[in-house]
Structures are given as structure tokens and as C-alpha cells.
């Protein structure tokens, strides 16, 4: 497809389980970003990838959160031992990464922790 694709669109899981969220960026976009949107915190930056490396992980809220990117394309955000406060919409965005380029967002994954 032409846009950023995220899966699943919705995920419900029990507290303490691990979850994996997937992002397929726009083809050719070298920069990839993860954000979290929650009622209490608004929109927050989590992590930035340039190619397969992550020069900025400053937004990850705890060591239960990790992310990787392979082949300069697909990225996976993993949350271990989920807590109720992890409930949020997780948004992925990609850009050409050449400066001044706007980010294109996916529709997000709505994560609910029971």
C-alpha cells in the first residue's frame, strides 16, 4: 500500500502478557518513529530509527519497552509484562529522513490491558 501500515489495529491482552506491535513504513522512508497517544499523557515520542539503528530511545517509558527494525523497513515495538498504564494507541510514522520532511502516520494500534 501507499501509506504506513500498522498491525494489529486492536489488541486486548491480560496484564503481565507480552505484546508485539508491527509497523510497515512507506517504501523508501529511512526514518521511522513510534509515538504513544493516551488520555492522560497526550501524544508522546517513544523512539526514532534511522535505517536499522535507533539513535534516540529517550521516550521509552521503561525497560519493559523495546523496539527493533530490520532490513531498514519493518519495525516491531515489544512491551513485556504489560501493565494497565500501557493501555494507549501506539502510532508509527515514517519519513524520508532528509531533513524538513514531514512524517506520515499509520492509523495506530489500540492496546487495551485488562
Amino acid at each position: 500500500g501507499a501509506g504506513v501500515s500498522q498491525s494489529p489495529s486492536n489488541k486486548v491482552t491480560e496484564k503481565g502478557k507480552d505484546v508485539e506491535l508491527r509497523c510497515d513504513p512507506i517504501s523508501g522512508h529511512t526514518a521511522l518513529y513510534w509515538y504513544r497517544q493516551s488520555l492522560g499523557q497526550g501524544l508522546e515520542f517513544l523512539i526514532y530509527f534511522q535505517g536499522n539503528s535507533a539513535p534516540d530511545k529517550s521516550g521509552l517509558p521503561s525497560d519493559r519497552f523495546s523496539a527493533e527494525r530490520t532490513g531498514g523497513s519493518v519495525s516491531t515495538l515489544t512491551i513485556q509484562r504489560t501493565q494497565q498504564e500501557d493501555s494507549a494507541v501506539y502510532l508509527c510514522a515514517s519519513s524520508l529522513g532528509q531533513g524538513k520532511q514531514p512524517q506520515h502516520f499509520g492509523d495506530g494500534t489500540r492496546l487495551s490491558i485488562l
Partner: protein
Amino acid sequence: AQSVTQLDSQVPVFEEAPVELRCNYSSSVSVYLFWYVQYPNQGLQLLLKYLSGSTLVESINGFEAEFNKSQTSFHLRKPSVHISDTAEYFCAVSDQDFGNEKLTFGTGTRLTIIP
């Protein structure tokens, strides 16, 4: 560090009336400025951006925003709104740092158009 303030969390406006959504930012470095729109159950869509040059930028659907450096503002305006403009609007900034263009967002303004 950067911050973005959107003072109005909700703005109700009658159809065909003008609207202004306010955005102020704080940053120790030069920034790029953006407005994103989010329709229900969808991701964010770029509405318009200021990178450099003319301080007045326009979108294809009639919105405009003006960068005011002295007032550190980037207010969004539309002279006549339509029902389809009902959405949440987010103002955002990023450093003028080649490479890492992570966005810092405001808390959003929910625009409701009254028929």
C-alpha cells in the same frame, strides 16, 4: 527542551463561521512547525507545515497558519468552516536538526462544527 501549548481543549463553532485554533511553543533552538488533524479512529494527517520562507502557509482545504517568531505562535485559521472539519487538531514542533525530526505535540484542540 521544547514544549507546545494549545490553550483551547475544545472549540465549538457554527458552520460557515471563522475559526482560530491557538498554538504557542517554547524552544531554545530554531524549530519547524506543523499542524496535524486526526479524524475519529484514524491516525494523524499532516495539514500544513512551516519550514522556512513565507511565514504564512496554507493547506488545500482552506486552512492557513502564520508563524510569528516574536510571539512564538503558529495559530491555525479558517475563514469559513464546514461540518467535515470536525476533528481534533494537534500543533507540533521539531528541532531544525538534520536527521532526528521527532515531534513534540500540544495536547490537541477538538473542533466541533455546529450545523
